[in-house]
């Protein structure tokens, strides 16, 4: 391949200049103006604006160069025309020499994590793993079956409240509540599934959004049932063969428990995707009418997707209740659904490893950006936008499994 032909024209420079002016305009209200309400003075911080202007100018020049380089290299193909998996991250992942050490390293870190890091770090990691589980669950519904569900948090709430309430009224323990919460969430999944069977795309999204809000509002207002906005406290942490664990011990225990459950989730989701049912889900996402004409029962296939997706949210809910020992409806707002959906989209719809990476990134990033204080969410937003610009189809594009065809074996496992 010849060296890519990259150079900057005056037009590019002009565009970069415009971009930087635009950013100066956008950031002006909160970076340049500082109002001190106590002394009723306005502080003008002009140097800030100069920093913004110079940085965005240089960055947009760099972006322009990168784009040219990429276009030259890919011979002006869009990502859509390329064979699936043509993506540096993905190529790296499929190379066995890279993949195995990477997996081994990740599992080693995962195993010793609570021993190396503080309880605080472990706690954050538990949350991240919880979102991995939620992401993988929603991935079944959105990524694989293509049903845009904006009310996923409802099933998470069902799981959490079923443990909290069953424990409160009947003294049921964590290990009994885990399958029960999953089952109840699955039932709710089917309950939601029925009315939305005929809906697609935007309409489906709106109804599921409404469903999520209904569940939250019921929990908020039905005081006799759910204790309303004050929530339910003193939910026991998971027991360890009847032993009483210290706070630190129980967090470590919860970490390993969560790790195990995530592995279990990955195992099940992977098997589901590569099965008769999984193929039907993918086909449903691709073309609903052709799918029916090929003899696939649309109703049943959609309901299984909703139910199975909800199952994982239910389990995650039970664990969430056990982890925080206190739940109230404020934990189950639309923002949660949005974050989980973000994880699925960012990870690459239908890609298990992508969802895991995205969940870790999305949950850990805001935590570790804390030193940036006020600008934490700004930086977080920038990272999200950058990711969608450079990887519009997600971190890792899902690859269809290929089957052994006359000695031509390609990867047996999807990424």
């Amino acid at each position, binding site marked *: 391949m010849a060296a890519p032909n990259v150079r900057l024209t005056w037009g590019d420079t002009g565009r970069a200049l415009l971009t930087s002016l635009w950013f100066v305009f956008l950031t002006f209200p909160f970076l340049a103006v500082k109002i001190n309400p106590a002394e009723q003075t306005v502080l003008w911080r002009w140097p800030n604006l100069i920093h913004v202007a110079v940085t965005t100018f240089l960055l947009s020049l760099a972006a322009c160069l990168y784009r040219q380089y990429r276009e030259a290299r890919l011979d002006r193909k869009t990502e859509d025309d390329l064979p699936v998996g043509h993506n540096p991250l993905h190529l790296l992942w499929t190379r066995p020499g890279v993949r195995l050490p990477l997996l081994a390293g990740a599992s080693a870190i995962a195993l010793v994590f609570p021993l190396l890091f503080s309880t605080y770090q472990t706690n954050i990691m538990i949350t991240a793993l919880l979102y991995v589980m939620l992401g993988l669950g929603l991935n079944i519904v959105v990524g694989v079956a293509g049903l845009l569900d904006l009310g996923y948090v409802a099933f998470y709430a069902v799981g959490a409240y079923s443990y909290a309430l069953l424990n409160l009224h009947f003294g049921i323990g964590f290990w009994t509540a885990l399958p029960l919460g999953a089952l109840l969430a699955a039932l709710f999944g089917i309950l939601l599934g029925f009315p939305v069977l005929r809906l697609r795309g935007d309409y489906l999204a709106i109804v599921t959004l409404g469903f999520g809000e209904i569940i939250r509002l019921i929990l908020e207002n039905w005081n006799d049932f759910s204790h309303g906005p004050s929530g339910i406290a003193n939910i026991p942490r998971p027991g360890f063969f009847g032993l009483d664990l210290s706070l630190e011990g129980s967090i470590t225990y919860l970490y390993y428990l969560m790790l195990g459950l995530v592995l279990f989730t990955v195992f099940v989701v992977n*098997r589901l995707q590569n099965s008769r049912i999984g*193929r039907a889900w*993918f086909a449903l996402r*691709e073309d609903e009418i052709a799918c029916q004409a090929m003899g696939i029962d649309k109703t049943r296939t959609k309901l299984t997707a909703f139910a199975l997706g909800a199952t994982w949210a239910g389990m995650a809910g039970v664990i969430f209740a056990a982890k925080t020992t206190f739940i109230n409806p404020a934990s189950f707002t639309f923002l949660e659904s949005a974050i989980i959906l973000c994880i699925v989209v960012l990870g690459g719809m239908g890609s298990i490893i992508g969802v895991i990476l995205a969940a870790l990134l999305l949950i850990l990033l805001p935590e570790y950006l804390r030193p940036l204080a006020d600008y934490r969410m700004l930086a977080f937003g920038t990272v999200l936008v950058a990711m969608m610009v450079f990887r519009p189809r997600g971190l890792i594009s899902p690859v*269809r*499994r290929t089957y052994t065809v006359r000695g031509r074996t390609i990867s047996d496992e999807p990424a």
Partner: protein
Amino acid sequence: MEFGGIRALDAFDLQLRQGEIVALIGPNGAGKTTFFNCLTGLYRPTRGELLLTPPGGETRGLVGLKPNEITEQGLARTFQNIRLFPRMTVLENVMIGLHCRTRAGVLGAIFRGPATRKEEKETIAASLRLLSKTGLADLADEPARNLPYGAQRRLEIARALATDPLVLLLDEPAAGMNPQETLELDELICRLRDEGLSILLIEHDMKLVMSLSDHIFVMDYGRKIAEGSPVEVRRNPEVIKAYLGEEESDAPA
């Protein structure tokens, strides 16, 4: 079949016997595809009947069944504007066709017991057989959207065949094909007929229709305007009028 006040299909009847190729022709907008959609359950006809008698079986009415149930009963179709599953591999597309002939459920998928594994193996083997029959075996692992046009048409037929149909409904299978591809299609359809499949064909390529069909139905404005053998239809003045307008001409082409 009526849509609101519009009668798209009016007193149209058609018979197809086992091992027969019947063609349905007519100008654009005549209602051919509407007729197909009624047969396959995508539309529910306002009035009328659809009866299917499997060899050695009882006659069953199919009106009112869902599309997937009709496919299960033995009617499989292709689409005028190709409707493959573009991001799935060629092999998987065919495997989807076998969905209604296999049973594995969620638990089977998770535990992957011996029965599930056996079924999966058979599904792959059967799909590969169909792919070699349609000349697509070398492309099995390719995503369907990467296939050339003619191959996509053949893949749609392979996918429909995977549902193990009694009747195959082909909606303009030769549209957009080059002469070579049309010739191959001609051979494929003949081979399928010889295996005992009944084929109902919508097609505009008159050469293909005339050479393949045992019987031709001509439709215009939702009504049957003629039927008969290719030779009879070719001479029918009504047909010539529908295709070429009032003026006398040799043959519709």
